[in-house]
């Protein structure tokens, strides 16, 4: 049975991490390694993991380096498949077994995107009758989808080939960058309704400026790194227009600051432009409008 590596990145969420690691023990898949990368938490997260979960491989960062720390976890993963979770998410008990079955039955499948659902409410409102595993794919015939980093399985060799997460993004839109590369390398991304990840979705806890800033800044970098030239020009103008409009509508400068940051920080994506095939660029669903809805 192939080894699966579960990689979690954590920062300052000791209780959530404890719960997620406890829930992971319910996983039915027998051949698992769990790697936790800690981004310099100061709330006792590391001590708790070392004490309560000695079987977990803990990698400690000396400072918070954002999603770059995930890549250290990925590089240390020995599994043929990597499952990525947040520090406040965990897969349902059957999720990893089902994920492996889907990978084994479709060699062009690069990513199994978990159905990431609300931990607090999902079980009350859903009836999970037996879902036919051959009919669980939630896809659309005319466009391609990305995935949610709170629950996803990726083939390790494919993930390594596309360079893991873009370190320069720090937060947000990193999954979208990987999605471009996965589709461009000839592999597919599929959501599956019978592969669940529970996420403690609590948007009130999100600091107001980080999501709109990073989503917007990274949207420019997504376009400049991945789109063919003609679309780079088009989407840069579209994003600029949306930044100006949203700034006035929501009476905030955060989108303008993000646009400026994208330009001044262009050096951070030096040597990383790899335009995708036109089919991928035109079919991959990038929710640009959504990036301008996170400001409270």
């Amino acid at each position, binding site marked *: 049975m192939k080894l699966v590596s579960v990689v979690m990145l954590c920062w300052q969420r000791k209780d959530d991490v404890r719960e997620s690691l406890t829930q992971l023990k319910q996983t039915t898949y027998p051949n698992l390694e769990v790697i936790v990368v800690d981004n310099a938490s100061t709330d006792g997260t590391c001590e708790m993991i070392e004490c309560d979960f000695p079987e977990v491989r803990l990698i400690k960062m000396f400072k918070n380096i954002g999603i770059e720390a995930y890549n250290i976890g990925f590089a240390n993963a020995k599994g043929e498949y990597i499952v990525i979770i947040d520090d406040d998410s965990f897969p349902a008990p059957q999720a990893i077994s089902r994920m492996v079955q889907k990978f084994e039955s479709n060699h062009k499948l690069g990513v199994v995107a978990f159905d990431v659902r609300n931990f607090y409410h999902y079980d009350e409102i859903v009836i999970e009758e037996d879902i036919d595993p051959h009919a669980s794919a939630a896809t659309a015939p005319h466009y391609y989808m990305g995935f949610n980093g709170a629950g996803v399985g990726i083939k390790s060799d494919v993930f390594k080939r596309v360079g893991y997460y873009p370190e320069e993004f720090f937060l947000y839109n990193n999954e979208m960058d990987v999605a471009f590369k996965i589709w461009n390398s000839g592999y597919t991304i599929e959501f599956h309704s019978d592969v669940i990840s529970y996420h403690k979705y609590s948007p009130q806890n999100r600091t107001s400026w980080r999501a709109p800033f990073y989503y917007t800044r990274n949207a420019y970098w997504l376009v400049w790194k991945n789109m063919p030239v003609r679309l780079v020009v088009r989407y840069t*103008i579209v994003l600029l227009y949306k930044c100006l409009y949203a700034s*006035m*509508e929501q009476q905030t400068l955060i989108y303008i600051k993000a646009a400026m940051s994208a330009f001044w920080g262009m050096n951070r994506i030096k040597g990383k432009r790899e335009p995708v095939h036109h089919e991928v660029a035109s079919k991959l669903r990038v929710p640009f409008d959504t990036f301008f809805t996170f400001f409270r």
Partner: protein
Amino acid sequence: MDARPKKALIIRSASFQQLDKNLPEILKNLSEYQLDLLTHEHGVRLAEKYAQIDKIFIYPYRASFHRKSRVKELEKESYDAVIVLVTNLTGAGFLNVIQFATTIRSREYLLCNLVSRLTPFTRRIVAIDQFKSSVLKLIAALGTIVMAPLFLIGLLIGMPVIRIKK
């Protein structure tokens, strides 16, 4: 007396995670309603798991909801309530979905925000917002015309820095 059961349509303009959170509150407030759901094609399989959703309609476009992109099956329907999910507290940034919602025949229209508060809105309010939005769009377009050349020149100079990965 109207014996037809009351019907409400939820427009899935937020994640399933948020809908999982909003749905219990919607059910509490609209307890006697039959609930239908409109979602993009990729969401159908995931929406089918909701026990309380009666019918699922497909929005057959890749892009976001837009008032000009009609759903043929919904043109025959008439609702007592249409609910728009928004991922923030105020609905800012969701005017396109709100405008789309008012193209569907309904007695009332509701916004459901990320903390599950239901707020009514009317076609009149949408028309006023549409007017304001048109003014902002004009200003944003003018600003883009002025700033875009500078940005594109900056990009042109910066592109060699970005350069194709070998």
